[in-house]
């Protein structure tokens, strides 16, 4: 059995030993590092980690420095999932052959990647890993944009946002397509566990990560990661933005077990209007012009419909 951390409160959480150093080059206010620490803090077991090319990778392993006190690999943009899958295959092979240096350990294999590296360029690799049943966890740091390269749209970029390749302008409100439902797609591989998490709800996060580590087989985690640079908000407001994302139900927190058993894991007491979530970010600023206000109404309707859909799935156990 894997060893799980028992963490009672935030103070204990923030001072718990971690294997991801604060010394890194991520922007002040970046949610990536918070999410990574929450994931790593969910276990005391050994770790084999990967990062796909992106903010996390370029900010944590610039030679001759590393922010990682755990086995870590980066290959390319699209193949971080397959990197840990290969390492996991080697672990199984050496275990069978009795050649592990520390045979009593129970390592966890985790790949971190942005939404661009997951929803777009790495999609096939992740799908392959999920389909083949590797004992790995893929965590998407979902900031809904190619942040590392200056804010280009990805297939996770939401409708109406302004990005550098789908900018709002005199005749455009920016992104025309709504984001891909990656959690549903990954759950459709009938993997043992898929979930959406957010760093503000850290207990929910830790519980889900620990569930993911406990199951046998591939796990997909989508973590909302507000990006101070591209979402355009004050770095001190990261947690406020995360609160707005979960409490407006734009990022509902739920899990899907074995591809069909959907559980909503967080029901905000006071649901925040989507308008408040949009208004807090510069990338949606143009939506508040008169001609685009209908989009805010449509945003709310879409979020309501998505929430109703999740509730129906939960009730029907499908």
């Amino acid at each position, binding site marked *: 059995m894997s060893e799980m951390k028992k963490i009672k409160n935030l103070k204990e959480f923030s001072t718990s030993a971690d294997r991801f150093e604060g010394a890194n080059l991520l922007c002040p206010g970046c949610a990536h590092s918070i999410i990574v620490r929450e994931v790593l803090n969910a276990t005391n077991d050994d770790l084999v980690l990967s990062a796909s090319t992106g903010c996390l990778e370029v900010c944590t392993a610039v030679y001759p420095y590393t922010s990682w006190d755990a086995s870590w690999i980066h*290959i390319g943009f699209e193949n971080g999932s397959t990197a840990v899958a290969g*390492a*996991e295959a*080697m672990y199984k*092979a*050496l275990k069978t052959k009795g050649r592990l240096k520390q045979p009593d350990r129970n390592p966890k294999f985790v790949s971190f990647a942005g939404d661009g590296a997951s929803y777009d360029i790495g999609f096939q690799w992740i799908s392959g890993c999920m389909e083949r049943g590797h004992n790995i966890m893929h965590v998407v740091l979902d900031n809904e944009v190619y942040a590392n390269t200056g804010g280009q749209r990805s297939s996770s970029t939401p409708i109406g946002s302004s990005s550098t390749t789908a900018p709002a302008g005199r005749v455009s409100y920016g992104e025309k397509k709504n984001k891909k439902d990656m959690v549903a797609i990954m759950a459709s591989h009938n993997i043992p566990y898929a979930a959406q998490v957010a760093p503000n709800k850290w207990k929910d996060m830790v519980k889900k990560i620990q569930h993911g580590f406990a199951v046998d087989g591939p796990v997909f985690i989508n973590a909302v990661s507000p990006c101070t640079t591209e979402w355009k908000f004050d770095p001190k407001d990261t947690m406020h933005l995360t609160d707005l994302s979960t409490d407006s139900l734009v990022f509902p927190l739920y899990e899907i077990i074995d591809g069909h058993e959907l559980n909503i894991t967080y029901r905000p007491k006071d649901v925040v209007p989507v308008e408040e979530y949009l208004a807090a970010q510069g990338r949606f600023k143009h939506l508040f012009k008169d001609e685009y206000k209908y989009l805010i109404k449509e945003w709310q309707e879409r979020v309501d419909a998505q929430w109703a859909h999740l509730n129906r799935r939960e009730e029907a156990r499908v």
Partner: protein
Amino acid sequence: MAFDKMELRDIEVWDGNFAAAQALRQCQIDVVAAYPITPSTPIVEGYAKFLADGYVEGEFVMVESEHAAMSGCIGAAAAGGRVATATSSQGFALMVETLYQASGMRLPIVLNVVNRALAAPLNVNGDHSDMYLGRDSGWIQLDAYCPQDAYDLNFIAFKVSEDHDVRLPCMVHQDGFMTSHTAQGVHTLADDVAYSFIGDFKPMNDMLDFEHPVTHGVQTEEDWHFEHKARQHNDLMTKVMPKIQAAFDEFEKLSGRKYNIVESYNMDDADVCVVCMGTSVETAREVAQEMREKGIKAGVVGLRVIRPFPFFEIAEALKGVKAVAALDRSSPNGAPGMLFNEIAGCLYNTQERALLSGYVYGLGGRDLTKAHLVSLYKELQANVDAGKVLTPLQQFIGVRGPKLAFL
């Protein structure tokens, strides 16, 4: 051990693919991550069957693309164990990004490349386009001319690649169909003998050593990138050839089969010679022998090691030769062929510079016939007699339509 050994006859009738698969079985690979593509598919199929029949132990991961195959191999190799795969052509092309990553991360991986043309137009037959595509990727490249070589060179590949002074991945090339699907007698090694030649895998910077966490695949910019690349090149230029030679020597003692970095045939007194790779070396040897009866002192130089390029060994092999033809089996697409260029470099600063001409042949599996080589040797002899190259520097052999010649 939880797998069975296989009793082999001293000589088995194997094609190049099965010979390579048997070598992989005997090397006891820990992880094979692979994706099928013609004509290399039977290598991974063979390996899968060995696994299904209990003749190998380890993980066989059938991934969803060649890019993922090499990505999985990189992850597995960084984790610390013996890793191999196989591919061809388009699959090789899809892998190219990861080839550079594998070598830059100094991971010993053995890749069997069954050479095949590159589209468009789509073509499944053998030429060296994929081999040429990989030549700047930082891998060691060994070249087999026949199934026997494809078997033996796999052992050499693991031995050199996994050496802690080398730590570079290695390709074993064989010609699509001409070698991969042509059955010949292959002298075998007993399982124990073969395995003891390469020995147990010795991990280095392995991710599965949790007492010593390592960071693989870092970012370096203008401050360190050049030093990393220079060091890799330095090791390829200075460390690899001696290791290959030592492995060849040790292998000869074990098997009685002698391999050389450059394979010279009838070169001691040759006036004219061709330099080529793959199955063409064997065809050229036959023709060279026959040319002697016609009064032309013909020889053949085959490359056994393509990367690192045997610069001095080629110059040495070509000493005293008066006319040389470089045979390139890949479309140069707007330049002299790779072999032409490399050989020109070898010869340029030598005292008695041979006359050099280039030939492009065999694209998409087009045969190189003995008749082609006979007239080629005659052209070389005419060059010798005239004291200059009488033909254009680049000619195409065996292509239909008006004769193609350039430069």
